[in-house]
């Protein structure tokens, strides 16, 4: 059964058939036919952003918080190039997003026409796959294929570039089918023999640890459930990357907190000293491993990943398992139950005893103040007052992001949206717009820094237009805090261009955007004001004035190993910690 319609109508019909309810976008000359098709229907709601980068981040937030594919529509030329940062962000964090870009008509391609750019050329390196659809006959297949590619295997962004004449051309639309993709068949079921070997290794482990990542979140809620079951059954400690927070409940005693550059002492030390490491859906990123040749030197490493190129890319592993995290975890649960291993109580006691000793080091400690708001304290209070309130958090990038990761505690997956791989300042506010659109009744908070938030501040206007009551909680220390911290550590405290000069008045700025502005500089007023923010029915910008030169600790300095962390009670000269070689690293 096929219907004849225009290319523009096909795009909207395909969105409907794929169950898409919202698309974030910005119109322009080369997508007018698609906007006309949007106008003539009401199943797919269009959210008008204020900048195309914001559209992609909003779609990422939407995708990350729902598990669905996020959709974006932008015009040719600048519309497409503005989307590039968002695409790269989605690629590095494996977020399923489809970006439709308009293109000049096929007969003008290559002529440097107005608002023409080589979109597929530019986005080839920052998408999982991209398409230029030159013939209307190809459009229905490409539309459905794009959803398959974006969501299956390791998820990622897909661009579909549609010339304007193809949008006007009439052709036969066909509905999505279950036909197999011609070439792309990701392996989702892990090799059983390998899984069995992994379980055997886990059974014999004396000092095991689970190291989980964003792959568990991407594998869906069932994967998190299987992870919880497996971790509880085994009694092993568990840590997670920034991207994996929420897959395992932070309130559980087996949870060691986040690992990596700003992870907890106990998580990093346990990674360093473990004898069996079970990596599920994480990729040995350099923020995690620190110095590679000193990374967990004594352990056997199991690595579960859906992307074969993640295996042995950075760290050589002993037991690779290629497959979907959820399916592999369920198999592990089944095998563990079948084998009913006898717990090695003595080894377990010794290992947990060691972990308790590391925990007692209290690596997230900070000095409280009566007179000024410590950024860590602000996040702690924010967490305390939003707990149990159906809250979702997004972040910008920098110190505030790390403090949020350390002091917000997640019980569920899909509640935490942050730019991990690319580290995109300007991610959080538009992402919050996307999350709030997907969860209209939830409390959506963007934890921001005063510098990051200005990068996509214009999206407050989107929040106002669609009455999205997002709460932008700015830890304002008047510095690009992480840059300042690195300049302190690496460049003799010469704070070159990292001071946030001439900041706007965020309260007035909020009001200019039809939002509520709240400012707080007194720790004694903080709770009441956070409560005021939560209670306000509408978007809020909260300008939280915090200690200016606070460092984010604990920290694995660049070029050092997990067991060489700087802890909060470090009392020496911070400029002496990192040697010349470490200074070259990022």
């Amino acid at each position, binding site marked *: 059964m096929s219907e004849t319609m225009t290319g523009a109508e096909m795009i909207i019909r395909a969105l409907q058939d794929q169950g898409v309810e919202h698309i974030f976008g910005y119109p322009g000359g080369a997508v007018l036919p698609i906007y006309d098709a949007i106008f003539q229907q009401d199943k797919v709601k269009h959210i008008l952003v204020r900048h195309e980068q914001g559209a992609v981040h909003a779609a990422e937030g939407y995708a990350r918080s729902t598990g669905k594919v996020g959709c974006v529509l932008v015009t040719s030329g600048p519309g497409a190039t503005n989307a590039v940062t968002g695409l790269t962000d989605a690629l590095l964090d494996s977020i399923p997003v489809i970006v439709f870009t308009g293109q000049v008509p096929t007969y003008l391609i290559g002529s440097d026409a107005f608002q023409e750019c080589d979109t597929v050329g530019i986005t*080839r390196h920052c998408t999982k796959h991209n398409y230029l659809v030159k013939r209307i006959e190809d459009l229905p297949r490409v539309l459905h294929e794009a959803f398959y590619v974006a969501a299956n295997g390791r998820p990622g962004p897909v661009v579909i570039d549609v010339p304007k004449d193809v949008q006007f051309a009439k052709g036969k639309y066909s509905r999505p089918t279950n036909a197999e993709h*011609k070439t*792309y068949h990701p392996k989702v079921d892990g090799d059983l023999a390998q899984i069995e070997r992994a379980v055997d290794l886990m059974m014999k482990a004396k000092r095991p640890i689970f190291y989980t990542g964003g792959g568990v979140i991407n594998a869906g809620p069932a994967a998190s459930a299987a992870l919880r079951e497996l971790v509880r059954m085994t009694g092993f400690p568990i840590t997670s990357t920034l991207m994996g927070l929420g897959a395992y409940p932070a309130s559980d005693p087996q949870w060691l907190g986040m690992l990596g550059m700003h992870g907890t002492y106990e998580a990093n030390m346990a990674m360093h000293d473990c004898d069996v490491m079970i990596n599920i859906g994480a990729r040995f990123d350099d923020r995690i491993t620190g110095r590679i*040749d000193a990374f967990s030197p004594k352990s056997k490493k199991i690595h579960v990943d859906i*992307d074969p190129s993640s*295996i*042995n890319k950075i760290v050589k592993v002993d037991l690779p398992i290629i497959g979907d995290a959820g399916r592999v975890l369920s198999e592990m649960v089944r095998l563990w139950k079948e084998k009913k291993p006898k717990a090695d109580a003595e080894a377990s006691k010794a290992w947990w005893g060691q972990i308790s000793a590391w925990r007692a080091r209290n690596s997230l400690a900070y000095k409280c103040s009566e007179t000024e708001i410590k950024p860590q304290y602000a996040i702690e209070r924010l967490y305390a007052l939003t707990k149990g309130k159906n809250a979702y958090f997004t972040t910008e990038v920098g110190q505030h992001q790390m403090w949020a990761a350390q002091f917000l505690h997640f019980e569920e997956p899909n509640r935490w949206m942050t730019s991990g791989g690319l580290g995109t300042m300007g991610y959080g506010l538009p992402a919050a717009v996307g999350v709030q659109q997907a969860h209209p009744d939830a409390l959506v908070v963007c934890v921001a820094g005063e510098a990051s938030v200005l990068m996509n501040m214009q999206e407050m206007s989107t929040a106002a237009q669609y009455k999205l009551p997002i709460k932008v909680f700015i830890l304002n220390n008047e510095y690009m805090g992480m840059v300042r911290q690195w300049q302190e550590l690496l460049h003799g405290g010469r704070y070159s261009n990292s001071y946030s000069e001439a900041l706007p008045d965020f309260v007035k700025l909020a009001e200019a955007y039809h939002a509520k502005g709240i400012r707080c500089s007194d720790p004694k007023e903080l709770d009441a004001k956070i409560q005021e923010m939560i209670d306000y029915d509408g978007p809020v910008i909260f300008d939280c004035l915090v200690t200016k030169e606070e460092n984010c600790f604990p920290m694995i300095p660049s070029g050092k190993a997990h067991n060489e962390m700087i802890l909060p009670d470090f009392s020496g000269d911070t400029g002496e910690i990192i040697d010349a070689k470490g200074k*070259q*690293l990022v």
Partner: protein
Amino acid sequence: MLSPYSDPTFRQTNERRTLAIVVDNEPGVLARIAGMFSGRGYNIESLTVSETEHEKHVSRITVVTRGTAQIIDQIKAQLNRLVPVHRVVDLTLSGANIERELALVKVRQDGPDRSEHRMEALRLATAFGAKPIDATLNSFIFEIAGAADDVDRFIALMANIGLVEVARTGAAAISRGADGL
């Protein structure tokens, strides 16, 4: 190792590998493959591409690359995850294979040794199985097809007797025996 976070703990030797990559012949597929190599800092010693099955829209790309065993594995994994790639076969690893490339070699003879050099060029061409496909009173163009080493040696010899220009195709490769990919 690959990361700037470490010093190499051991040296792996670089190996030369020939990969056959079967891809959908869609626009931009070559840019995707070549871009993967350049974007991730891998070597391409040679690359050839042409459609091999017109009806199925399938092309075959032969890449000769060099890297440590770990890097070669990474290259194969990265190629495999490109959406239009059907399969990647490591011909070097999968047993005996034959590699051939074609070169067009232009030589020019001027000056007092001209006729001696012309005779020598023809003699060498015969010895290497190269065909003269164009001749003028003071030049030849030879066509030579063979293993890369033979082509290298032929070109090196021609350098002594008036080499002007070389055009090489890069290697095409196929495994020995009756079985296909």
